[in-house]
């Protein structure tokens, strides 16, 4: 498969954002995934998110591992810096990049094969470190690039295209993230852009690791009857727990909800995330209650979606490490090097 650049043609009346860019300016090269792939819908949601947030393309770093999902960073924001790393180990590259330059926006795209098998350790430690990034796991329960083996997120009893039922218990990334102390945990569906876009926006504004598990069906290997990750199954079993509204910084809040059903969370950058509870008893800021609720919903075979848990006050990786305020890469050498006097001081310990 070759690199296919998209033609630059655009409609003259296309809407522009505050940077004078159209949504086309946030696109990348042509997708080489199968027609109808959920991942392409996630890409489209990301493009809309970046456009609507007036993001400067070159201030975005987009990273991925290996797999169908990990191919997608080439399909959005061609003027962003991209990094296609090794299988399952994008989180460490993102952590290193973020350590060196904390002022860029980081988006990591991964899949269930990438994050939940070879990359499970990396995924867990990125959560523990609370690396400030948006981490999107495009979850289809199957290894698409290697032609349809069950992945670690496949549910017990879900069948392969050939009819074989999966027997091994799934690793639930949402449950894993919550258990490890993740500060932003969401689940959405590639077929529900209205839900996904505000979640992605909130994730980008979150100070810390924003985890979004997106059920993103594989049309070629896992979209049949008997699969619990198909379009039809996901649509019929989706259970929206929280409706998310994202209100960017300096925007008047206009949406109205009945009293008591809305929780507003002010993000680190000053924007506000409004969480509208569809289920009255649900509290997206109580980790233990969320885990209990999800276990209950999951036991009925339902898929709870929405911004499931949010905690904005915690320290991110730079907070834990007590690093300087600006990007490390911008510190001049003269300030970094303690020089001959510094070296002499250090050596006094050994005299």
């Amino acid at each position, binding site marked *: 498969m*070759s690199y296919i650049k998209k033609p630059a043609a655009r409609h003259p009346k296309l809407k522009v954002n505050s940077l004078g860019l159209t949504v086309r300016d946030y696109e990348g090269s042509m997708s080489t995934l199968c027609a109808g792939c959920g991942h392409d819908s996630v890409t489209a949601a990301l493009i809309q998110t970046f456009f609507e947030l007036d993001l400067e393309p*070159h201030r975005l770093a987009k990273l991925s591992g290996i797999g169908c999902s990990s191919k997608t960073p*080439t399909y959005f924001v061609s003027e962003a810096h991209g990094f296609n790393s*090794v299988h399952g*180990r994008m989180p460490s*590259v993102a952590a290193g990049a973020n350590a060196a*330059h904390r002022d860029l926006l980081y988006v990591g795209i991964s899949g269930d094969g990438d994050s939940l098998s070879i990359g499970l350790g990396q995924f867990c430690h990125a959560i523990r470190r609370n690396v400030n990034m948006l981490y999107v796991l495009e979850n289809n329960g199957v290894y698409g690039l290697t032609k349809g083996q069950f992945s670690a997120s496949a549910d017990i009893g879900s069948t392969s295209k050939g009819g074989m039922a999966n027997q091994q218990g799934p690793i639930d990334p949402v449950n894993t993230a919550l258990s490890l102390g993740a500060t932003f945990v969401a689940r959405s569906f590639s077929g529900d852009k209205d839900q996904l876009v505000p979640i992605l926006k909130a994730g980008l504004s979150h100070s810390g690791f924003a985890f979004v598990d997106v059920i993103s069906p594989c049309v070629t290997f896992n979209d049949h009857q008997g699969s619990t990750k198909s379009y039809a199954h996901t649509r019929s079993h989706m259970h929206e727990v929280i409706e998310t509204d994202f209100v960017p910084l300096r925007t008047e809040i206009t949406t109205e909800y009945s009293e008591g059903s809305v929780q507003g969370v002010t993000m680190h950058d000053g924007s506000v995330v409004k969480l509208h509870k569809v289920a009255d008893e649900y509290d997206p800021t109580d980790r233990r209650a969320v885990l209990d609720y999800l276990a209950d919903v999951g036991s009925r075979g339902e898929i709870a979606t929405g911004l499931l848990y949010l905690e904005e006050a915690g320290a991110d990786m730079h907070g834990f490490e007590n690093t300087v305020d600006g990007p490390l890469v911008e510190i001049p050498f003269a300030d970094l090097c303690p020089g*001959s006097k510094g070296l002499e001081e250090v050596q006094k310990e050994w005299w």
Partner: protein
Amino acid sequence: MVIGAGWMGARAFSPTAGPGISLMSEFIGLAYYAEIPCVFFNIQRTGPSTGMPTRTQQGDLMLCAYASHGDTKHIVLFPADPKECFEFSVQAFDLAERFQTPTFVVSDLDIGMNDWMIPRLEWDDSFVPDRGKILDADELEKIETFYRYLDLDGDHITARTLPGVHSKGSYFTRGSGHDKYGRYTEDSDAYVEVMDRLLAKVDSAADHVPAPEIFETDGGKSVGIVSVGGCHWAVLEARDALATEGIEIDYLRIRGFPFNQAVEQFLEDHSTVIVIEQNRDEQLKNLILLETSCAKEKLQSVRYYGGQPLSKGHVIEGVTPFLTREPAEVLQ
């Protein structure tokens, strides 16, 4: 993390031992192919596997020279004591950024964990780091289109950009096949062109790695010793002992890979070259055979790999069969 930070433009390194290099070899291949500066310190211990993790060895010479699958080759520096570890670390960062490639400092457990006496470390306050070819916002503003892997200067080194600096500097960093424009490719010619440039680039570092340290005698050019890293002090001690008996041997200590021209010259100048190293498989000797034009018949091997630091006794005992007369020292 080192690779992510290197990609962003920070100088980053990871200190490890052989198992860490084995584990991270896939990443090292990525950094080689995507041309990301990074530095690794390998404090070698006794392998293979967990081996004797509290004992010393030089068993990772081959591993570091060619770490990762596919065709790869890396810059490697070999310090002989803690002072050189300090000095080479500075050079390693310069080399990594200049050549945009993984660079190893290969020490060993004897140097890394035992107590040493070294001259006081010094720092030259006029030092300016060599960041290599990095285009800043002004330079990017002036050019029409930036291509990451296009060799514009003919020196095999292409300019890089740092994320977040300028929209014109954006490119996609990938471990998959790419052409000189940085685009994904499966085209044979485009792939080979990049791979050939990478080989030429790393080979051209031979003139920039630390030159070998050479100890020459007046005793002719028949037998010479070649050694590396922490073997140095035992070799020096043995040479001194042999010299008191009138047996003088030339000695060259390799300090960098790819091998400097001075290494090739030393091999050419001596009819017998004894390679002294601390591993079973003659790794330095084999590296010399692979990477120089030296004839196999010329090279003799002295190895000690029991996990203790090399001693004068090991050296004298090892070189004796190749000397014209047996030293009295060896009989003691």
